[in-house]
C-alpha cells in the first residue's frame, strides 16, 4: 500500500515536472528529464542483459552441465566459467546457465563483437568497435534489402496497378485518385528534368498530394499527443484522491509556488 502511494507521488511529481516546461525551463523539468534518460538507459540495459545476453549468449556458451560428464576441451572451458561464477554466482550460477540451450561455440563471435563494442568506452582503442558496427550495419542492410524490395517496392507497385473503372463509382474514384497521386508524386521527385511546362504542372499536382499527406500526418500526430495528454491527466485525476494523500493538489501547489518565487527572484536579479 505504502509503495503504491509512494509510486503515485513520484508519478505525479514527474508528470507535473515535465508539464512545467510549458511555462518555462526550470529545475523541476531538468530533474525529470535527467531521471527519464538515466532510468530509461538503465532499464533497457538490465532487461536486455537478463533476457538476451544471459540466456541466449552465456547460456549457449556455458549451458548447465554435470561437471562429471564434461570431457575434452569442455573441462578447461568450464574451469574458465568457475572464474565467472566466483565473480558473481547470481549471473553465473554453479555448473552453467540454467535452461535447455545447446552448447554452440559460434556464439563466441557474438561475444567478441560485443566486447569490441564496449571498447568505445576507451578512446585510445575505440576504433576496435568499428568491426562490430560494420557487422551490425552489414547485417541490417542485408536484412532490410530483401524485405523492402519485396514488400515495399514490388508489393506496393502491384497495389498501385489498379483499374480506373471497377463497376462501382466510389471504388473507381478512389483508384483514380490513387493513380493520379502516385504518378504526379513521382513526377515531383524526378529532379533530373526541369519542372516547367506540362512536367511542372503535373509535379505541382504532386505537391498538393504531398501537402495533403503531410496534413493527414500532422492531424494524426496531434491526435496522438492529445491521447498522451489524456493519459497523463487521467493519472493526475486518479492520484488526486484521499487514498493517495491528495498527491496532485499538494505537489501542484508546491511546484507552482516554487516556480513563481524563483521567477520573481530571477526578475529582481535581472533588474
Amino acid at each position, binding site marked *: 500500500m505504502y509503495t503504491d502511494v509512494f509510486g503515485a507521488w513520484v508519478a505525479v511529481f514527474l508528470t507535473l515536472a515535465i508539464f512545467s516546461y*510549458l*511555462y518555462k525551463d526550470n529545475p523541476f523539468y531538468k530533474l525529470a528529464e535527467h531521471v527519464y534518460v538515466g532510468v530509461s538507459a538503465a*532499464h*533497457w540495459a538490465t*532487461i*536486455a542483459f537478463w*533476457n*538476451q545476453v544471459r*540466456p*541466449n549468449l552465456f*547460456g549457449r556458451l556455458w549451458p548447465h552441465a554435470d561437471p562429471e560428464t564434461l570431457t575434452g576441451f569442455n573441462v578447461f572451458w568450464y574451469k574458465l566459467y568457475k572464474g565467472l561464477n566466483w565473480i558473481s554466482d547470481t549471473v553465473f550460477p554453479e555448473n552453467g546457465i*540454467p*535452461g*535447455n*540451450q545447446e552448447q554452440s561455440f559460434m556464439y563466441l563471435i557474438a561475444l567478441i563483437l560485443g566486447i569490441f563494442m564496449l571498447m568505445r568506452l576507451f578512446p585510445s582503442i575505440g576504433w576496435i568497435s568499428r568491426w562490430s558496427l560494420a557487422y551490425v550495419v552489414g*547485417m541490417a542492410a542485408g*536484412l*532490410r534489402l530483401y*524485405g*523492402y524490395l*519485396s*514488400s*515495399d517496392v514490388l*508489393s*506496393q507497385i*502491384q*497495389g*498501385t496497378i489498379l483499374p480506373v473503372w471497377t463497376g462501382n463509382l466510389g471504388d473507381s474514384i478512389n483508384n483514380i485518385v*490513387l493513380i493520379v497521386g502516385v504518378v504526379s508524386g513521382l513526377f515531383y521527385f524526378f529532379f533530373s528534368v526541369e519542372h516547367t511546362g506540362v512536367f511542372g504542372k503535373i509535379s505541382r499536382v504532386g505537391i498538393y498530394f504531398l501537402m495533403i*499527406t503531410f496534413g*493527414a*500526418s500532422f492531424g*494524426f*500526430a*496531434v*491526435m*496522438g499527443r*492529445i*491521447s*498522451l*495528454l*489524456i*493519459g*497523463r*491527466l*487521467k493519472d493526475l*485525476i486518479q492520484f488526486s484522491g484521499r487514498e493517495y494523500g491528495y498527491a496532485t493538489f499538494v505537489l501542484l501547489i508546491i511546484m507552482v509556488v516554487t516556480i513563481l518565487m524563483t521567477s520573481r527572484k530571477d526578475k529582481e536579479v535581472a533588474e
Partner: protein
Amino acid sequence: MSSKFNTFLQNLDRLDRRIIFLIIGLVVLFPLLVPLNLPVEPTGLTRDAFEAIHNLPDDATVLISFEYGPSTKPEIHPMAVSVLRHFFARGYKVVVMCLWPDGLFMAREALDEVLNDERFHDLVYGVDYVNLGYRPGNEAVIKGITKSFAANFTVDSKQTDISLIPLMNDIRTVADVDFIFSLSAGYPGAIEWVLYASDPLQIPVSSGNASIQVNQLLPYVKSGQMKGVIAGMPGAAEYEALMVEYGLWNTRGEAAKSMDAQSIAHLVIVLFIILGNIAYYAKRKTQKKY
C-alpha cells in the same frame, strides 16, 4: 470589419502560447471529469481488423507482439486489452512476445487485467497462453523466429525453459501461427512484421497503432498486405464498440471514455486554426492598407 474586432484579431495573433496550452489542458480535463458519452461509430479500417481476427478458425493460434511503452500507453493499451479479450473469448491459443523492453510490462499488465475476469479464470498458462517476454534485436528477432522460436526464446518471461511449455511444442516457427497482431508505436513494429514475417510466409497480420504511425501503414492495408488497422485512440474505442456489438463484452471501455476529451480537444484545435487564419488575413489586410 469594425476596428474593435480588427484589434481583437490582431491581439489574437500575439496570444501567449501558454494561454493556448492552458485552454487545451482545460478542455481535455473537463470531459474526463464530466463524461459526455459521445457515440462511437466503427470505421472500415477497425472493422476489417476485427473481422480478420473474429473469422479465424476456432483452434487458431495467434501471436501478439507488444511494441509500445508507457509513453503511448493511453492509445495502445486499451487496444491490447480488447484484442486479448477477443482472442480469449474466441478460444484461441495466444503467444505473447515483445520487441520493446517496456512492452514486457505492458504485456503483463494487459494480461493481468484481462485474466482478472472470471470468464477467463480457467485459462492455463503455458497451455492456453504464454508470455515469451522481450528479446532485443528488432527485426532480426522477427527474422529469427521465421526459422526457430527456440533459437531466439530459450526461456519465457518467467525464465521457464521453452521446451517445458506445452503450447510451444506445436509452434516451432512463426509459420505455425495463424495470425499475427502487432501493438506498435514505432520501430520495430507493424511494418517490420509485414516485411519479415507476414509477406515472406504469407501469414495474415493486423495491427493496433499509435496515431502518428497510421499514415505509414495505410499503404499496406490498401495493398492487402495488412488486414485493417486499429488507428490510435479512436480505433481502440471503435474496437471496444465492436466487442459490444458482437456480444463479446458488455461495457464501454477506457478508450471510449477518453474519446469525449479527444473529440472536444480536436474541436478546440480546429477552432484555433480557423481563428489563427482569420487573424493572419486581417493582419495582412491592415499591413496592405498602410
